[in-house]
């Protein structure tokens, strides 16, 4: 079991009524899909906010950052960086810069 730290943007932590940074206990390989699954299980109101309910595809204006890298286009089943798995670094979810 790993404890992963996730940082949510304002729009989502107010929707979830959580803090900006949350902890998720996850068993098994720590992939983006596993983290999002755990997040949606803990906060069902976030289902559909980050990825399409039917296809699982990331919503176009959602980004995932970790360890100063953009993880947005990682395969959902790829392992996240070790620092995220060990809880030293958070997975940061942001709304993409869009607009003027």
């Amino acid at each position, binding site marked *: 079991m790993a404890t992963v730290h996730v940082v949510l943007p304002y729009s989502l932590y107010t929707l979830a009524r959580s803090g900006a940074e949350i902890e998720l206990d996850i068993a098994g390989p720590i992939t983006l899909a596993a983290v999002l699954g755990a997040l949606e299980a803990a906060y069902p*109101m976030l289902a559909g906010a980050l990825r399409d309910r039917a296809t699982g595809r990331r919503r176009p204006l*959602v980004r995932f950052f970790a360890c100063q890298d953009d993880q947005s286009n990682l395969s959902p089943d790829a392992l996240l960086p070790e620092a995220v798995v060990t809880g030293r670094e958070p997975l940061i979810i942001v709304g993409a810069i869009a607009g003027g």
Partner: protein
Amino acid sequence: MPHIRVLVGTRKGAFILTSDAARRDWQVSGPHFGGWEIFHIAGSPANPDRLYASQSSSWFGQVIQRSDDGGVTWNPVGNDFRYFGDPGMHLHYDGTSKPWEFKRVWHLEPSPTDPDTVYAGVEDAALFRSTDGGLTWQELPALREQQGAKWMPGAGGMCLHTILLDPENPARMYVAISAAGAFRSDDGGASWRSINRGLHSQYIPDPEAEVGHCVHRIAMHPARPNTLFMQKHWDVMRSDDAGDAWFEVSGNLPSDFGFAMAVHAHEPDTVYVVPIQSDSEHYPPEGKLRVYRSRAGGNAWDALTDGLPQEHCYVNVLRDAMAVDSLDPCGVYFGTTGGQVYVSSDAGDHWQAIVRDLPAVLSVSVQTLP
């Protein structure tokens, strides 16, 4: 003493405006859901404390919020809007076909009798219904059988924006779609027919086509549900046979382009519109914000200006941003893209701004509370 609750959806949150029956002094609550687009908020006629709100974002998608205490507290409910079966393709601006894709909920229409039943009009155009207070949603897919493959988005998107439930006939309902037209069901949504005969639209290849008309709004008086008024992309129209045939009632309006429309609460032949300059100039003619009222069911219109800006006004009034209360005299309300919400407590003769500096107003609905 009766009082009024005005539910305002804006580009950056929801606001709730309340007043006693005098409608002079207002309390403002909000923003609720700050930063999110609130396309519509509606209260259940069967339980006025039950409110539904459509909250959406280009980043994070669709949320439906529900309140059971008149908007003091809210809880997210279901946001899983899946089309029934394979919805196929529809036309796009460039002549290609695109797959049907859910984008957002434009309009919520609670049942007049059951607080847990509510209809949702969505983009890409379809009608959904929930019978469990918004927890789950099911499409009424027969609507798309009305030549859905030929529907094409208007500039605002291919949205189902108007839902009218016939108060005398629970099996009858109407919807309107940009840019497909108006449709009626006489069996609770199991089947539909297009009701666009009499519409003439020069911006489509066949101006009198069965579907493809850009209907902006339909309004009905509950005591006369067979009479419908329509603000089309251009033209103000009327039908006296439940939409079977339409005739134009634009009359002396300075422009018959517009979006918003409402019918007086107690006078079925008194109708309100807000003329907009043109399809490419979305602001009032001459920079004068004027509501036009016809007491004759159309054709003869009077400008209502007292209390409204009559120079340098270039706001728009969107299709879901006008409503009436049911007090006597009837109150009329509308919101603008400039963030003003205006009220007239005397059926339109005089106006005052309740608020002036909200984000752009997307929708206004009104509850008359006991």
